[in-house]
């Protein structure tokens, strides 16, 4: 038999690559089930190995504990019922009760904290509003621009296209400060507008759609013109339907980028936590003085990426269908 040494090597490298890519996700999910101690040492208090799901040994919920710490009046009122005990002893009894009540399995604790300490549902809603608005506005801007660059003849078209290509090279971080100042001067920081407006012109979207429109035969456009469509009707009624596969591809890039974006919301949302996007939800558990709460933080992270992964798995099927069906003859 002809044994090809290349195949196992290829597969080995691919598997290695897959492991490198998947490992952070594995840790994220695993940590979201574990207590802080398990995360830090890899073992529980009895020295058992944590494993993927953690040992689920009950631990004290710090938030629960803090908010229920016995107060002076409680101690005083209990002292009346328990004569002969010192204030210290009564306090300790109360404390023991609280501690017992606040004992929780880490997995349960992390996720409840994620949804209660951080208003994660609100953040998720913000995320949906922001990413959907960004994508829609990007399409509204990019389609006509791409159409003009691909199909209309006008002076300076090549120059403008070169500018688009140049803009592709500029990282957002380079213009973040001027953008922030402009928004601040307009009084728009701490608003949805601040989260959305800077992203409405996507040069990548313009470039991608322009490349796609180049492949659409001119006859469709001429047919539209003969039928009496305006240039804008041609864009929405002829070009848009043929561009669905390309738009889906762009949607994946756009939605993933802005749903996961931590940098820009962090810059423009300084006050009102009601405007936080999901990634900012992780900040709640970043406690500068007492160290970070990694368990809940990872629970937030899992909650954020799950909708994306589900959406992608659904879209992926549509995406491939879209490409094979579009076959424009």
């Amino acid at each position, binding site marked *: 038999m002809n044994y090809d040494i290349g195949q196992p090597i290829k597969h080995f490298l691919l598997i290695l690559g897959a492991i490198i890519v998947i490992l952070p996700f594995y840790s994220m999910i695993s940590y979201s089930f574990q207590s802080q101690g398990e995360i830090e040492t890899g073992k529980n208090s009895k020295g058992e190995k944590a494993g993927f799901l953690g040992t689920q040994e009950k631990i004290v919920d710090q938030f629960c504990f803090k908010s229920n710490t016995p107060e002076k009046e409680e101690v005083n009122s209990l002292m009346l019922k328990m004569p002969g005990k010192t204030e210290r002893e009564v306090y300790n009894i109360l404390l023991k009760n609280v501690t017992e009540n606040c004992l929780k399995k880490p997995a349960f604790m992390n996720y409840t904290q994620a949804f209660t300490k951080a208003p994660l549902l609100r953040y998720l809603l913000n995320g949906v509003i922001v990413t959907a608005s960004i994508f829609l506005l990007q399409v509204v801007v990019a389609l006509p621009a791409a159409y003009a660059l691909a199909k209309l003849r006008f002076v300076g078209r090549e120059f403008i296209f070169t500018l688009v290509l140049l803009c592709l090279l500029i990282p957002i971080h380079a213009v973040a400060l001027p953008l922030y100042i402009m928004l601040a001067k307009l009084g728009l920081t701490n608003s949805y507008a601040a989260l959305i407006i800077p992203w409405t012109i996507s040069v990548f979207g313009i470039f991608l759609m322009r490349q796609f429109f180049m492949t659409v*035969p001119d*006859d469709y456009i*001429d047919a539209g013109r*003969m039928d009496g469509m305006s240039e804008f009707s041609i864009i929405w009624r002829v070009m848009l*339907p*043929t561009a669905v596969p390309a738009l889906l591809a762009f949607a994946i890039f756009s939605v993933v980028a802005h749903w996961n974006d931590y940098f820009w919301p962090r810059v423009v949302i300084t006050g009102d936590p009601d405007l936080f996007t999901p990634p900012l939800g992780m900040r709640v558990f970043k406690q500068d003085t007492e160290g970070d709460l990694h368990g809940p933080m990872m629970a937030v992270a899992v909650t954020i990426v799950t909708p994306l992964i589900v959406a992608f798995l659904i879209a992926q099927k549509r995406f491939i269908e879209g490409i094979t*069906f579009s076959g424009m*003859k």
Partner: protein
Amino acid sequence: MSNIQVKEIYKSYGNTSVIEDISIEIKSKEFITLVGPSGCGKSTLLRIIAGLEQINSGRIYIDQKDVTFVRPSDRNLAMVFQSYALYPHLTVKENMLTPLKLRDLSSFQRFPLIGKYFAKKELEKLDILVSETAEILRLKKLLNRKPGQLSGGQRQRAALGRAMVRKPIAFLMDEPLSNLDAALRVHMRSELSELHKKLGITFIYVTHDQAEALTMSNRMAVMMDGRILQLDEPNKIYSEPNCIKVAEFIGSPKINILPATTDKLGYLSIGNFKSNFKTKIKNTKIFVGFRSENIILNKKTNQFNGSVKHIENLGSDYFLHLKVKSFSDKIIIRIPHSDFTNIKVDSSINFSINLEKILFFDVDGVRFNASYHTFQKKIA
């Protein structure tokens, strides 16, 4: 009725001139074909008439009205594209409705989702128009299919349907048959001719296939290098071409063009053959042209002898490609099936040219008339 006039049109892309001084008057209800080799500017001329292409100078009139700067849709012309250009995401019916809706409904009534509830009556009328057209084109069963689910011929008819529904004053067609297989193409020729008679609308038809032009049109314009070389009825173009270029482009197989001379009395010699055919011109180098069918296989008065290099069997006829000494180009002759006996490659064939059907061209390729001169027997 509605005629279309194109006057002194020039068109260039950058520095390359594509249309040079074309004027043409298209009569109402005629089937006119623009024919020429690919790249000669036929499509460009058609698109200029449609209004899809700007021109450098010149004027276009429809019904004596200057439409040079009128939008394509307002010229009330319809176009059938080579690629059909049916909107791929719409059904055949929706494709056919599109131009009607854009013409007859207000922009409010065309508003997505809700508009249609305010245009019930209009939409019913449009549906009737669509089904009338579908009836003529035998599209009824296909109305709810998408273009991707149709065969080439069906797409062709759907594209015709979309053009027809709004009853334009003229159909512009750019090589509409070139994507069909050979058999269907021949079939569609007769369908289109019939449709033209049935509808009584002007057809402006672009093709590079001279056979389509000859079989279908009332008049045809032969174009080359951005100019119209000749505009006439098909049989006139075939029998009386203006110049060698037209003569060579029209007719299959290609016309035979041979160098010839006239002597000082005007008698014509072709190669080594001195004829008793007298022309009015004397002592000149000319070209003569004769079509493959204008020969006589005559055992006695043989003018030429050639050896067969290639035989094309067309069933009813045979085309023989002959190498005749003293001519560099091969000569193609047509012989009916019945005369084809025992001819093989390298067989030797004697034939004569039917001098009455011969065409004369001067050295510049322009045809002149010499055939009215008397046909005399030269005294031996």
